[in-house]
């Protein structure tokens, strides 16, 4: 794997930054890769569109920012609208298809949908939607190993929520996205 530029987006309070943190921690500390996380901060992080950026590489990361994106994770319409233009051709888009309802043409992308928030609600806590999404992201992109992820989650969430979060991760990890519409017929 060479350099991957990942953007997690959503609105403040969805745990977007924690998502990126956990993936970053799993790759940087347990998978022996390099990871660099930066976050859009300030007023943006309070209710509005909020994002967290993660660069993962085998070698040292020089440029830590994410402009053109390899993988976009969208937990809100605003995040989707704002960051989709930066997703590169053939990039991977992972989104919550309940919260992102107005979609554009996805033919250029590898677009994968999951009702993460609904699945989290079924677990009893919508707050773990981010972790459901993270499980989905890991299963679909192999950004980090499953074991490292489980370890990173255990070490990053409050003790009494570890089980819930691990469960959420598994739900997302095992979720099979609905068959994508074959787009454009290229290839």
């Amino acid at each position, binding site marked *: 794997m060479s350099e991957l530029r990942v953007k997690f987006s959503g609105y403040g309070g969805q745990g977007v930054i924690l998502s990126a*943190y956990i993936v*970053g921690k799993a790759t940087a500390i347990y998978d022996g890769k390099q990871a660099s*996380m*930066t976050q859009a901060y*300030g007023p943006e992080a309070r209710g509005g569109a909020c994002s967290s950026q993660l660069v993962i590489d085998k070698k040292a990361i020089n*440029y830590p*920012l994410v402009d053109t994106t390899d993988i976009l994770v969208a937990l809100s319409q605003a995040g989707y609208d704002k960051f989709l233009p930066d997703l590169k051709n053939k990039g991977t888009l992972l989104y919550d298809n309940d919260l992102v309802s107005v979609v554009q043409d996805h033919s250029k992308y590898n677009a994968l949908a999951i009702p993460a928030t609904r699945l989290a609600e079924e677990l009893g806590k919508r707050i773990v939607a981010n972790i459901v999404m993270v499980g989905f992201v890991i299963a679909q992109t192999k950004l980090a190993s499953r074991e490292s992820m489980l370890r990173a989650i255990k070490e990053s969430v409050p003790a009494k929520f570890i089980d819930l979060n691990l469960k959420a991760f598994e739900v997302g990890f095992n979720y099979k996205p609905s068959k994508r519409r074959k787009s454009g017929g290229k290839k």
Partner: protein
Amino acid sequence: MASHAKPAGSGTKRIKGKIIILEDRCKGCDFCVEHCPRDVLGISTQFNEKGYHPPEVINEENCTFCGLCERICPDFAIYITTEEEVEEVKPEVKKVYANRNKNLPIVKSTMKGEFFMQGDIACAEGAIAAGCRFFGGYPITPASEIAERMAYRLPMLDGVFIQFEDEIASMASIIGASFAGMKSFTATSGPGISLMTENIGLGMMMEAPCVVVNVQRGSPSTGLPTSWGQSDMMQAKWGSHGDYGSISLCPKSPQEIFDLTIRAFNLAEKYRLPVFIMTDAIVGHMTEKVVIPPVEEIEIFDRKYTNKSTDKYLPYEIGKSMIPDFAKAGDGYRYHTTGLTHDERGYPDMTEQCQKSVVTRLVEKITKNIDDIMMIEEIDIEGADVIVVCYGITARTVIPAIEKAKKKGIKVGYMRLITVWPFPEQRIKELSRKCAGFVVPELNLGQIALEVERCAFPDARTKGVTHAGGGIHDFNDIVKAIEEVAHGKK
């Protein structure tokens, strides 16, 4: 003191004593004459050497040796002695000082391992690893995480955290804590540094070891609180009024913030001054792997304490090192220090010679030790036609541009200033004889570029790549600048 013998018994017993007048100290205020309850004193017709009329004893037999004249005299020019007191010699008490002539003891941190850690937090952990146990600060984006981390960590380690009413107080407090023998620091951003500059000058003048972190953001004024900049680089050199040497370290990653914060404390202790960490909002808020080694593997330098006895110690006496030996408050040295220009005793000295020697030393203790202080990283410098001089976050964002220029066949060297101050004047001068010129990208409108230009021989060109902050350079601008310098375009 030679004080007030109480009227013994019923007051019939006469106390024998003496009124002593130090005529030449007197400034003739008559306080003693007027307030003596027994009219013992009068005004002499004689002049003293300053031209005042001192008091004289006119009714010695009336004196009760009450001591009022001694207490009221604002010039310490009159006092009384009584016979009783001659016997009253108290035995010398041998004093015991715990921790004399070393920094105050601390509880060590045992934290170690590999962490996925934010830059600001790594800064706080670096300070803790360096032995800092005092933080005085005031919240400001993007530096607040440092204060928050210290508020959490210091109580676990018996340290002192205090959030002040402003940055002026914060800076004053860390100098105070430093003189009490505790490693101390504060962290802020541009607007806070502007308030701190007053006492940064005091720290420079008094030579107080401490560390000041500037997580730079877009400036001037309130600027861009949540976004990026490197616009305070000259402020770290010239911010407070007057000449002094500055040490400013520019980390490029959370790991380096950790490492350089330790180094900043070591340099502050060694050279006795406030040392700056000049980071920025990107690095401060960036999360990466940070390795914290076990405490025993971390190299720590503590300030050099005097080994002189209390009567021989002079707080600003200079040996060979240009750095005066330290004594902390409470060790019995009872010394004075001031922000005024001072002599080796720490006493104000308003002479031109003293000013010259103090200010020159404040500058030269840094410039003459540049080899010990300066850290630069060089890649592909030998034979380079163009040298990119960079620091902090920019040292990372320029790499793709350098690679691109290399692909175009240009020999590009990379020079990263880990210490921006003291500035590597000699090295720039040397390199400027051998290359076509320098490209200096920075998130300001040209601060360090001016410094490079100043040091380089005129034949070598210096081209700044400016950026007002709030974003980072367009990669193509840097490539273009490299090409221009390589091809000698004006």
